[in-house]
């Protein structure tokens, strides 16, 4: 018996090819997939915002949104509707073209990364053999959007925010890259589906690689939080210093794009962590291995939410770093440790000490 999502897609696939010529059907299918992904991520983004607000409230003795719908579950949808209906306003002296371009850069970069995720064995948009590489490359395009937006806003606060974001992303890209590299050393492949296959037999990579893998995970979480510009690394926005940073001048849906992109980026980072360290859609100890009807995507989502919860926990606990401390942390601590860790991992694999 096939997985339920897959059987639906197969049905649609067959139906499309039966009523259209081959070329048109393929294009229609692409469009359908794109629309499905877009819808999925709009909803995921919105509900991540809601989750963030709920979690923040629970850390702070509050209830969080509870007015729109039961337990406030429609709150962010209402917010999104409000933002859509708002006027897109900009001040007179902005660089119109770049100003309008920036949000799309950010959101497109986030959405592109989504394409390669293996949500389950069958549910993967695009399984290329350099998957990790692609993810990593695409997710760092977003920063161009921030830089452009901050520059085009013609606001000094935005500019400071944009410059900070550039500096932050360039620095922390290294750590993210190196910690991913450490894990790739263990798997021997860049293809995401294969990385998960490796874990099916040998256990999750964080257990396989034990000490260096745990260190790599910690570094990945720190650097990943910095990549997404979230507290304690939210210098880009730093509301007590810069007002709202690079998106000070944005309003309406353009602002919403920046906002959603932040949450989707968080989803991306969490997904990479799940694929690289926690076995992707594999169930823990293979408990649902034999149950064919069980949607494996659920395991993936649960794991991703756990990681996201961890990132939210960081955000609502720690103060923000200062700009020079941010760089000190990267260049004096994370990077050297990462290098040593990489060598350590290589030695462990060489001596066959993996579990």
């Amino acid at each position, binding site marked *: 018996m096939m997985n339920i999502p897959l059987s639906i897609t197969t049905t649609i696939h067959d139906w499309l090819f039966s009523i259209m010529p081959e070329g048109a059907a393929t294009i229609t299918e692409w469009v359908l997939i794109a629309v499905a992904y877009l819808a999925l991520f709009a909803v995921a983004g919105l509900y991540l915002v809601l989750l963030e607000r709920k*979690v923040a*409230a*629970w*850390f*702070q*003795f*509050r*209830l969080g949104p*509870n007015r729109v719908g039961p337990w406030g579950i429609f709150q962010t949808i209402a917010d999104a509707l409000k933002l859509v209906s708002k006027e897109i306003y900009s001040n007179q002296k902005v660089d119109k073209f770049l100003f309008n371009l920036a949000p799309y850069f950010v959101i497109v970069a986030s959405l592109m990364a989504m394409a390669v995720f293996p949500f389950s064995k069958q549910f993967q948009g695009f399984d290329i053999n350099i998957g990790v590489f692609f993810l990593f490359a695409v997710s760092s395009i977003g920063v161009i959007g921030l830089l452009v937006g901050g520059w085009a806003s013609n606001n000094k606060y935005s500019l400071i925010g944009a410059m900070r974001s550039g500096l932050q992303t360039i620095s922390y890209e290294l750590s993210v890259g190196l910690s991913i590299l450490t894990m790739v050393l263990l798997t021997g492949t860049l293809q995401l589906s294969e990385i998960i296959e490796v874990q099916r037999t040998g256990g999750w990579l964080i257990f396989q690689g034990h000490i260096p893998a745990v260190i790599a995970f910690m570094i990945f979480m720190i650097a990943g939080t910095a990549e997404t510009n979230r507290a304690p690394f939210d210098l880009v926005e730093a509301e007590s210093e810069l007002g709202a940073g690079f998106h000070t001048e944005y309003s309406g849906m353009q602002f919403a794009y920046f906002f959603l992109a932040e949450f989707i980026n968080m989803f991306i980072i969490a997904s990479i962590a799940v694929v690289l360290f926690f076995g992707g859609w594999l169930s823990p100890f293979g408990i649902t291995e034999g149950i064919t009807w069980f949607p494996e995507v659920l395991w993936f989502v649960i794991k991703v939410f756990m990681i996201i919860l961890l990132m939210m*926990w*960081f955000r*609502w*606990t*720690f103060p923000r770093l200062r700009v020079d401390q941010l760089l000190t942390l990267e260049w004096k*601590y994370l990077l050297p440790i990462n290098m040593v860790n990489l060598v350590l991992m290589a030695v462990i694999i060489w001596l066959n000490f993996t579990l």
Partner: protein
Amino acid sequence: MSYFSDIYNGIKTLLTGMRVTGGHFVRIRSENITQLYPDNRDTLQMFERFRGEVVMPHDENNEHRCTGCQSCEIACPNGSIEIIWDRQVDPATGKKKKMIDKHIYHLSMCTMCGLCISACPTDAIVWAQNYENAVYDRSALTKVLNQPGSKLKAGIEE
């Protein structure tokens, strides 16, 4: 060596902080302090001394205790009390005496300092615990405290 102890101590303090917030996160059901305000209107009880607005209590015969001495008007720092008074013939004694016509209170100018109430020699005005003072029109905040047709309670002036 201090490099590694820095890392160790840093991570330790961060985890301590996370334990504090995490502890409250899991105990949210018993610890939350949110008041669901418009929903709990019926049960929400202000403290008896809460300074909501100045009112003039009237008894069942529509009688108040204000003699029109204007102590409150003088005591008020913002001019939020205006008393319009008149000399009228008191039906009981047949003498002319000071009676209030209107005791006007501008809630919009009131700073809730309570000087008028402590200045009042006959306890004619008191605090009410009404806390929902928002209105759509500013003129609604100008109130006449004595009810129409009300008169002074007998025996207050002595």
